[in-house]
């Protein structure tokens, strides 16, 4: 049974800024289907006494004290920038919004 449609793949691709060709949409719809089906099998074995969880670790409240550490040197920070100016990252013009 197919749960992931071609349209859905196309929609998610747009949201994720991934440019897919038509044949890729078909192929990925099929592959994602297989993945979703595999995961769905987990629901079949899960009994009502197993709560849904997003985290497999039996941990909560992992906190850090509010104490500063030295930051990255600004040269290192900007080393990762395609371009920089005045200590800041220079990025292309942003369209579609005032």
């Amino acid at each position, binding site marked *: 049974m197919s749960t992931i449609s071609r349209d859905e793949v196309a929609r998610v691709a747009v949201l994720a800024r991934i440019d897919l060709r038509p044949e890729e949409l078909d192929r990925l719809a099929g592959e994602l289907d297989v993945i979703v089906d595999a995961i769905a099998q987990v629901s079949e074995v899960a009994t009502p006494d197993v709560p849904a969880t997003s985290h497999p670790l039996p941990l909560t409240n*992992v906190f850090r004290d509010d104490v500063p550490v030295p930051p990255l040197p600004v040269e290192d920070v900007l080393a990762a920038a395609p371009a920089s100016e005045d200590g800041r*990252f220079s990025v292309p013009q*942003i369209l579609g919004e005032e």
Partner: protein
Amino acid sequence: MSAHATVDLVDYDEAVRRYDPVIGIEVHVELGTKTKMFCAAEVEFGGEPNTQVTPVSLGLPGALPVVNGKAVEYAIKIGLALNCQIAESCRFARKNYFYPDVPKNFQTSQYDEPIAFDGYLDVELEDGTIFRVDIERAHMEEDAGKNTHVGGATGRIHGAEYSLVDYNRAGIPLVEIVTRPITGAGERAPEVARAYVQTLRDIFRALDVSEARMERGNVRADVNLSLRATPESPLGTRTETKNVNSFRSIERAVRYEVSRQAAVLDEGGTVIQETRHWHEDTSVTTAGRVKSDAEDYRYFPEPDLVPVAPSRDWVEQIRATLPELPVARRNRLQGEWGYADAEMRDVVNAGALDLIEATVAAGASPAAARKWWMGELARYAKTSDTEIAEIAVTPAQIAQLQALVDSGRINDKLARQVLEGVLAGEGDPEAVVVARGLEVVSDDGALLEAIDAALAAQPDIVEKVRSGNMGPIGAIIGAVMKATKGQADAGRVRELVIERIG
């Protein structure tokens, strides 16, 4: 910008006669922690660009976030102060979108499990009415970096050739507080919106969880507004006006949207669900993004962070540390001081509450403290165009001034002269009394001298009084007061005059 001129607006009063406004407000507050939400980069306002970042703030591959425990504590404090439930367990989620100020391509936020929910805030309006705003949720998230657009003629994004990004702000802890739809405010919707944000600001400060400075963007409001035909009608389509960052603008943005949407509806049009931008300079909103598919943020639970499950003990410990909140304090003080509602309101509106509290603490009676601050000093602030708290006189000095009056060393009239001296920088009231020689003349010898002189000058009055006509005695007392420059106790003068003549 260019589109402004073509917008039809309905007069505000007319608009609220025909439509019922419903508002919803999202407030973001930057927490005053020393470090960021998910990494230990120091947070300090005004640092050089990109000098307060770590691999986590930059979203570098492999960087792992760790939650700042202090930020969780502050979020719980805010939740409790807003009468919210604190979640037994909650988690973070990724809000995915692409924008250069979000280096990870997602904002770490909370989605289906906020830390605090189902609260309310009682907001006092200018006339003293209490308006209850229901709070849907308060959740933790992180701030984005700061874009500066350069190269375009206007400096806005349109026409800009490129943008410069500073990630110092990226990752600063935020709490976002979301109201339920606020109904029933009617024509007072703008005032309610403003008072709500103002009350929140006061609470953030009282809790000491943020400096809460609007002008620095520590507190930012997004205002949702929709109109409906009557309070019984279903909710209309809303617009969301982003980043309205002063109290005055919040009020004006609501008014503007009411007038604009009323005009759209009057013409039989439909309001478009969209984001709008507030323009401080021209006091209008303009259309931004239309809410659409692009708004699908593909939220999912943050796999790099484990759930936050505040124990009930911890929550109760935090509750026990909550300071008295502004409205509760006001009510307590009003009870202690015995002020009428209107008196208390005037005091609060004049910004004199702290001053009067300090004056009372320094020994003055609440009535006397109010008399000074709301009378002579309020007038002085007004005529000198100063905030009352900025006047060059301290609550302790006012208490001392009143003590001088109470002990009879000066009378009310002299007290005003003493105050003039204090305001002129001549020192404490005590020092001014001595330096200006303003003490009430209580020495009978000095008074008698003045009385004898007055009697000698007006022998006809003396005759009348002797013959039992007490009427003209005022003229003698007046002459004595004049001779002593108001420093005599009029009652004592009268006694002495009668004795003298008698």
